[in-house]
């Protein structure tokens, strides 16, 4: 029972049809309280649909989603009291000022009269909005709009934050700022965020759920996923020497599974797991009197995992 209490999100066999199109199919996952989980997938994979169901905006066609123990459909109001949601594309009211907009959001979330101003001031400060407070939302830059979207989600200190593509359309320095902000929430809130930008997810999230064509294809920490992917590891070499001979010699080393020759004398060697072949490879090159310019072990990145899983699905 205790384990259930600690779960913030429980999704079971969740499916959603738009007309006859299947958007998500039989999703199952759980998110523990305090976790930051990244929802990763190509465009159209079903990320936004899933988040909309969690936020109570859509009802699922089949299956259940529970937040904090409450059903997203039958206890919708209670669910909506526990979450802050930043929709994709950050819809805002252009005719209101920043202050008016946040006042509305605070009142709509039931932040009581006296705390209202405090909460608004805090959210504005956290999101760096203080200087634009009298401005009309219509006149804000994309970066400020995004921050305002985050600020409204934060009002009332909801235990769960659902952020749909929180950094999309921002310039690199803004992306860094928003990421920093999200990291700061981490302690107090459970965060589920979607993205199709891989480095973002691996930087921000402890756990990654990869979704493709409406189905979960993997769910683990970024490192574990990378480890699972290869049943081996990779070594990158740069060697000056006759291309064919070098490749053949590398391939002949026991433990080498595959050698991919690239331009400028670069070779990517895939080896069996649990054995570091770097000394053998180095010795080989030196013994043959070729010149070894570079030798390093390469980790599988989340990008490799993602491409691998998504392409496997497509094949």
């Amino acid at each position, binding site marked *: 029972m205790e384990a259930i209490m600690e779960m913030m999100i429980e999704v079971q066999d969740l499916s959603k049809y738009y007309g006859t199109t299947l958007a998500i199919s039989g999703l199952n996952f759980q998110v523990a309280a305090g976790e930051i989980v990244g929802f990763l997938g190509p465009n159209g994979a079903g990320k936004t649909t899933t988040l909309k169901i969690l936020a109570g*905006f859509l009802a699922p066609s089949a299956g259940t989603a529970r937040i904090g123990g409450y059903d997203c459909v039958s206890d919708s109001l209670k669910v909506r009291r526990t979450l802050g949601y930043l*929709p994709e594309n950050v*819809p805002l009211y252009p005719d209101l000022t920043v202050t008016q907009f946040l006042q509305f*959001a605070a009142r709509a979330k039931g932040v009581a009269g006296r705390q209202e101003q405090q909460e608004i001031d805090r959210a504005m400060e956290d999101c760096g909005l203080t200087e634009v407070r009298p401005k009309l939302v219509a006149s804000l830059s994309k970066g400020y709009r995004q921050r305002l979207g985050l600020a409204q989600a934060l009002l009332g200190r909801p235990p769960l934050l659902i952020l749909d593509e929180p950094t999309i359309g921002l310039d690199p320095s803004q992306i860094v700022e928003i990421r920093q902000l999200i990291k700061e929430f981490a302690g107090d809130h459970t965060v589920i965020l979607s993205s199709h930008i891989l480095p973002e997810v691996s930087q921000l999230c402890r756990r990654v759920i990869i979704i493709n064509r409406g189905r979960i294809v993997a769910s683990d920490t970024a490192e574990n996923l990378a480890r699972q992917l290869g049943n081996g590891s990779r070594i990158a070499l740069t060697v000056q020497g006759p291309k064919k001979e070098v490749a053949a010699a590398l391939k002949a080393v026991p433990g080498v599974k595959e050698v991919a020759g690239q331009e400028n004398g670069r070779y990517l060697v895939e080896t069996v797991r649990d054995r570091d072949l770097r000394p053998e490879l180095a010795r080989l090159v030196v013994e043959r009197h070729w010149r070894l310019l570079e030798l390093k072990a390469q980790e599988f990145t989340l990008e490799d995992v993602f491409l691998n899983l998504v392409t496997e699905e497509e094949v």
Partner: protein
Amino acid sequence: MTGIGAMLRKELAIYFATPIFYLTGFFFLMLGGFFFYTNVARYNLVSLQAAQIIAQNPAAASQLNAQTMVFQPLFEVMAIILLFLMPLLTMRLLAEEKRSGTAELLFTYPLTDWGVILGKYLAALLIYAIFLGLTLAYALVFAGLAKLDWGALASGYVGLILLGGAFLALGLLTSSLTQNQIVAGVAAFGLLLLFWLIGWQQESSGVAGLLTALSLAEHYNNFPRGVVDTKDLVYYLSFIFFFLFLTKRQLESRRWRA
């Protein structure tokens, strides 16, 4: 009904920040003022001509009534002005939330559907009440010139509030059906016109009688004459509730259809 207050204040802030409030108010008051002025001018002329007749036949003075000559026709023409202007106040209310995507915010805040609907409806009603309140100036001006039947005047205003309230409720429904403000406005205007005109028939039996009983115009006629009939009150309150209820059902179905 959580959130009525929050919705109401937000909608009022948007009304005051956008030109539609000022434009609708301007035309409502300008047209109302124009008809008030022409009615008073006519009353004035008739009174002058009647002075001679009254000298001979004092009973004719009772025919000269400010209520029937100035305010009753004014209230009648105001109903027609409202037919055109009320859809402008409601067409944005839900259609724009859907078009701009803010519906996604609205329906993920802990607000009930009734909270959203009543907040929006009351905001539009309050805006309309402001316009109507300003027309009280006509009565105050006129009270300085002639004797006024305040009871009949109040009855006229009750009629106008109910009529406007009915127009707004129907407009809110059409706004919930589309993402396009123009479509919402045109649909509201068309339906209002329909509900207004179905009473214009010679016959009063069978289907014709039923249609007449459903007509907005038919139930309005008594109010400007200074008669508040329970039947008319019930009709308008039911009309308002019915259309707000349909709006509620429309919002509920959104989550499932998407």
